[in-house]
């Protein structure tokens, strides 16, 4: 009997949802587990970094890394797993595009730490202690990984073979990817393992979108009672569907919420936010500067809306910070 292919999972800057997604494969997960040999999965199994270091280079068939890269440790692990794996898959929006953690690129490290450890209302930290890279406690030297100024996507750190989009990737896409890996029926290196067409294509509400949509107001989902059948853009809600890769079967829209763009752009677009912006701007039903200002002013958090998942992967990447 030939040895089962070795598979590894790893998480970087992420919420854990991607790990959940693997478990969400439900009974299919058992098929996967039966077909492969999981050699590393910090979230679920007790292997350590030195176990990976001990493996022969290229001995892992495929490693799925979720999360963006923000710390020195994540960067080291990305390089290590790249070396050990024949195929490296960026799993989920954070790894592919930077994801929600990537919005930290709108701030600098100091303010991120200050908010998280000092000023946020839920923080109790009377001494204002901040994480230190090195500290000595009871005679023991302790260390924490360093935090980079900028959140990066996995492929900004190391060479990536495939991408599984989504926050988190849907079980269907994961199963198809694993299937492709096991059978060797893989597309060209660098491919995103999902359809390369925007979400509207598979959206059940598509036909209800008017030919010439013009909006006099943009609304947040909380401000309207949304009709469950009509195109959400037609109802004035910023749905990122036109600017977002399909493959999720419009799961959010099925839940009567607008697409927020987690699957990233199609392969033809280099900056999802910029494209979404020009698409939305074209919907504004006015040619008067002040009126346009009023209409677009209603978009509460333009960067957080248009670049919610893809700021680090965009042409902008981050807000400029003063380098001391």
């Amino acid at each position: 009997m030939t040895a089962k292919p070795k598979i590894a999972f790893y998480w970087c800057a992420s919420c854990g949802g991607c790990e959940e997604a693997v478990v969400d494969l439900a009974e299919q997960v058992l098929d996967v587990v039966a077909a492969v040999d999981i050699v590393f999965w910090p979230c679920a199994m007790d292997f350590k970094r030195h176990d990976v270091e001990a493996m022969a280079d290229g001995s892992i068939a495929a490693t799925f890394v979720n999360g963006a890269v923000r710390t020195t440790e994540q960067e080291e692990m990305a390089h290590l797993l790249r070396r050990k794996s024949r195929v490296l898959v960026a799993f989920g929006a954070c790894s592919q595009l930077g994801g929600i953690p990537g919005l930290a690129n709108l701030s600098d490290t100091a303010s991120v730490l200050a908010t998280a450890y000092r000023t946020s209302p839920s923080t109790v930290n009377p001494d204002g202690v901040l994480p230190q890279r090195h500290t000595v406690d009871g005679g023991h030297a302790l260390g924490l990984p360093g935090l980079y100024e900028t959140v990066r996507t996995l492929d900004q750190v190391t060479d990536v073979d495939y991408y599984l989009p989504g926050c988190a990737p849907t079980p269907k896409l994961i199963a198809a990817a694993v299937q492709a890996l096991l059978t060797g029926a893989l597309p060209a290196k660098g491919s995103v393992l999902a359809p390369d067409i925007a979400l509207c294509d598979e959206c059940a509400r598509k036909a209800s979108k008017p030919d010439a949509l013009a909006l006099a107001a943009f609304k947040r989902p909380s401000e309207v009672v949304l009709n469950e059948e009509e195109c959400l853009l037609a109802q004035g809600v910023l749905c990122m569907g036109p600017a977002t890769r399909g493959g999720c079967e419009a799961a959010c829209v099925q839940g009567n919420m607008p697409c927020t763009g987690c699957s990233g752009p199609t392969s033809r677009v280099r900056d999802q936010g910029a494209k979404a912006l020009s698409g939305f701007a074209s919907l504004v039903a006015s040619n008067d500067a002040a009126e346009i200002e009023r209409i677009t002013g209603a978009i509460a958090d333009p960067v957080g809306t248009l670049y919610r998942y893809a700021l680090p992967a965009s042409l902008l990447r981050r807000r400029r910070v003063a380098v001391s």
Partner: protein
Amino acid sequence: MPTPEHGDANAVRIGVYICHCGTNIAGTVDVHAVAEHAGTLPGVVVAREYKYMCSDPGQELIKADIREHRLDRIVVASCSPHLHEKTFRGAVADGGVNPFHFQMVNIREHVSWVHPDKRAGTEKADALVRAAVSRVRHHKPLETRRVPVRSDVLVVGGGIAGIHAALTLADAGKHVTLVEREPTIGGHMAMFDKTFPTLDCAACILTPKMTAVKAHPNITLWAYAEVQAVSGYVGNFTVTVKRKPRYVRDDVCVGCQECIDACVYKVGKEPDAFNLGMSKRKPIYLPFPQAVPQVVTIDPESCIEFKSGKCKKTCVEACADRHAIDFTQQERIETIEVGTILLTTGFKVFDAKRLPSYGYGTYPNVYTALEVERLLNASGPTAGEMVLRDGRTPRTVGIIHCIGSRDEHTNKHCSRVCCMYALKLAHLVQERTGAEVYDFYIDMRTPGKGFEEFYNRVAEEGVHFIRGKVADVYPTAEQDGRLILQAEDTLLGNVRRIPVDMVILAVGLEAQADAEDVRRTFNITCGTGGWFTERHPKLAPVATFTDGVWIAGACQGPKDIPDTVAQAGAAAGEALALINAGHIELEPNTAYIVAADCSGCKTCVPMCPYKAIGFDAEQGKAAINEVLCKGCGTCVSVCPSGSARQNLFEDDEIYAEIGGVLAHA
């Protein structure tokens, strides 16, 4: 393996040519260094500099290099693509390479002509060449499209330019629609009595042409009409024309004018626009006896029937069974399809009230030259008698040149015809009244055939020429209606104060007030002052940057009648050349939607300014009608999923170009 011809961007063989353009470029850009730099760029097989790339030997150089070095991409850095993109694409095609595997860099208008510093200019030229080299490797082979050219022509503006152009085209067998916004054609020339320098009677040479327009089987004349909108493209324009109601049916009115005589108004009450308000007309009128078409017009502002509905309508009675008068007539919107358009919308004269020191509008005996043209005209307000507003015949007349021309505060340009028409008026006024004429000029400009001779003749006739700018015009102490012209005589070196009965202001020529609207409607460009811009000041003086649209006459800049007629003939000839070619080759820079990629989000559909995008509800996809697409790129930038693309402006090409500019040398 894909061949370079099919777009393997890595395997290309690029030739780069840097043009000196004599010293135009080489004077400010180190062309040798730019060629050397180009030679170091990836994919570049040959990089040369040459004195004149557009010359035959320059083009030969490209062809020979293609053969010898198996080049498949060409970059030429020279002048504006407007001038020579076609030339070089032709040379590339003759060399056996797809003409769109070519990129032109403008290092003249964009570099040497605008940067004085040679080092910085050379760096910029380097950057632009790098951009072109990195872009051209991504170019795809493309084919030009051929579309037929409609043979019908639209001429806008029925002055002498429009009349001459329309007749030329109609005589060549083409159908012309001539749109004139006034009730009659004729333009400014119809207002004059005589024309310089030959003193031909204006009406004698103009009216036969006007009637020929009306009679010509190939001309549809729509006077009292204006173009509202133009869509389409060269060879295939759709034009909507608004025909204003005359309240008189032009198909039955015979121009007998019995209605005018019969009007309940015994005398005119409204200022007559054709006589510049110096006489009054009735609510029903013909602008002047020889007006074409010979169709009267009712002015609803002053007609009693329109104002109260209670007129006896004696005009209708007089018209009797011809039944030409129709108070219910409505504005008509007509749509025509034409292949070519000639704009001959002429000029307006400078408003002399803008320079109060000359007293126009304050002192009744100050006239503009155009008013004097009407006073001298036998069909004018005084039937050709030189009588002043106060009833006197002038015994001394002062003419002041350059009013609203060659002046920092009004117009910097020289209006070109004022010196000559001033001489004409000096001669005519002296001839008709025997008055002493004082002509105040700054420089006497007579550069035309027979012009200097005409000046000598007028001088010999005893007109007093005073070289000096009139600084002030003020009434005499006697308050007898006479005015004193005060000027420094720059030849004698003293200040002259000359009392005159009449002052004639030689007002300059300005672009039409609505030139900007007309420019927009026809999608052409205007220079400073609103004159329409020609494609090239020397080599394409009547073409515009919009294919299929020509300009002629005073709408392009001040000029006299002979030059106007010459331009009108030239524009008609160029339009004929295109019509006779029968088709036009269109740039393949159109947009296209990749059906497999399009999600059917419809974002692009309403965005296209040319309505070129349709939506196939069955397939759920958008699609572009290539013939209607003008390549503006709006849909390409707006498509949120990158599924609308554009030939020659593919993302790969644009990003490569940006990368090339930004890459450090």
